C-alpha cells in the first residue's frame, strides 16, 4: 500500500508539527520523530494536568489538525502520541 504525500520534506514537516504544537501550547516541550507521512509525538506540558488521555490528545490533535487534513496532507498518520505533565 503506498500513499502519496506530495513533495513534503520530512525535515520541514517535523518543524511544522513542532511549531504548530508550540503555537497552541506555549509551554510545551515537543519531541517529534518520523518521516514519509508517519510521525510520532511526545508532548510535555502543564495543560495536560487533570486531563484524561482523550482530552490530552485532543489538545495536541487540534493543534496540528491543519497538517492532517485532506488526502495530500503532510501528516498522514500519527503513529504514537504521548502526552505528559512535567
Amino acid at each position: 500500500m503506498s500513499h502519496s504525500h506530495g513533495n513534503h520534506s520530512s525535515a520541514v514537516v517535523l518543524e511544522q508539527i513542532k511549531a504548530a504544537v508550540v503555537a497552541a501550547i506555549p509551554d510545551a516541550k515537543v519531541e517529534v520523530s518520523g518521516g514519509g507521512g508517519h510521525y510520532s509525538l511526545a508532548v510535555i506540558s502543564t495543560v495536560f494536568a487533570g486531563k484524561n488521555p482523550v482530552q490530552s490528545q485532543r489538545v495536541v490533535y487540534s493543534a496540528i489538525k491543519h497538517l492532517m487534513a485532506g488526502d495530500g496532507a503532510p501528516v498522514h498518520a500519527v503513529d504514537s502520541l504521548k502526552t505528559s505533565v512535567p
Partner: protein
Amino acid sequence: MDASLRSRIQTLVDNNPVVLFMKGTRTAPQCGFSATVVQILDSVLDEYETVNVLADPEIRQGIKDFSDWPTIPQLYVKGEFVGGCDIIKDLVASGQLEETLGVASPEVAPPVIHVSDSAAAALKEAVQDGNEFVRLEISQGFEHGLSIGPRSDTDVVVAAGNISLVLDRGSARRAAGVTIDFVDTPNGKAFKINNPNEPPRVQQISAADLRERMNKGPLELFDVRTPKEREIARIEGARLLDRPAQDHIMALPKSTPLYFHCHSGMRSQQAAQFFLGQGFKQVYNLEGGIDAWSRDVDSDVPRY
C-alpha cells in the same frame, strides 16, 4: 457537519454497545492501527460492531468531525468516545480494558512461577520497603521485564519462593510456568527469564556455531540470495532457495531444523520468519550472513 450525517453516526453509536470505526473489516483490516485494535477487542469480546470507513467516504470524514478526533480507528463504548489505537493499548497495559468495555473481567488465577534461590535473594535486596513490589511484565509479543515499584488493585499477586511478584492481568495470563533465574553472563550477573508459553522465534546462529553443526552432518541450509550473488560467493552445502527448494521444505516434518543465510542476515531473517509462520519450530538465521562466514569461518569464500 451535515445534520443527516450527524444523526446517522449518532444512531450507530447509540445502537451498538461497542462500535469500532475502522479501515477495513473485522476479518480483513486494511491498516495496521485498525488491525491492532481488532486483535485487542477480539481477545476480550465475542461480538462487537465495526464500521468500515473505507466503504463510506461520508462517514470517513464525518466521524473525525463527530468525535473531534483526526485519526481512524475510533472506538465508542455505550455512546462514549474511548479513543484511538494508542489509548486502547494503554488500557490493555493498565488492565482497564475490560472495565471500559463493560465486560466482567475474568478472574485470573495466579500463575505458578519458579524463582531460583539466587534470583529471589537478588530481588529481595532490590526491594527497599513494604510499599514496593517486584513486577513481572510480559508483553503480547513476549518481551519480558522485571521492575520494582508500587502495585495496583487490579494486579495479580504471586508468591514464588520467599518473595511476592505482581503482574498485570495480561502478563499473568502469559506467565504460567515461567522461571526466573539469576545467572552469570559476559556482562556480569543478570536475570534470566524463561517462558514456556512463548511462541517459537527465529534463532540467530553464529557462523562458527553453524560450521560446527555442519561438521556433525548434513543439515537443511538455504541461501536466499540471487543466483548472481551465488556466482560470486557461496557456502558449500547451502541450497538456493528457489521454488523446488521451497516445495522441498514444505514437505519436511515441522520439527526439522531449518537454516537460512543471505549476504548480511536481513533477507534470510525474512525467509526464516516466513517458515516459522508455516509451523516450523526450529528456524535459524545465520547472523551476519555469508559475510560473517567469510570473515570468521572460511576466508576462501570471497567477500563482496
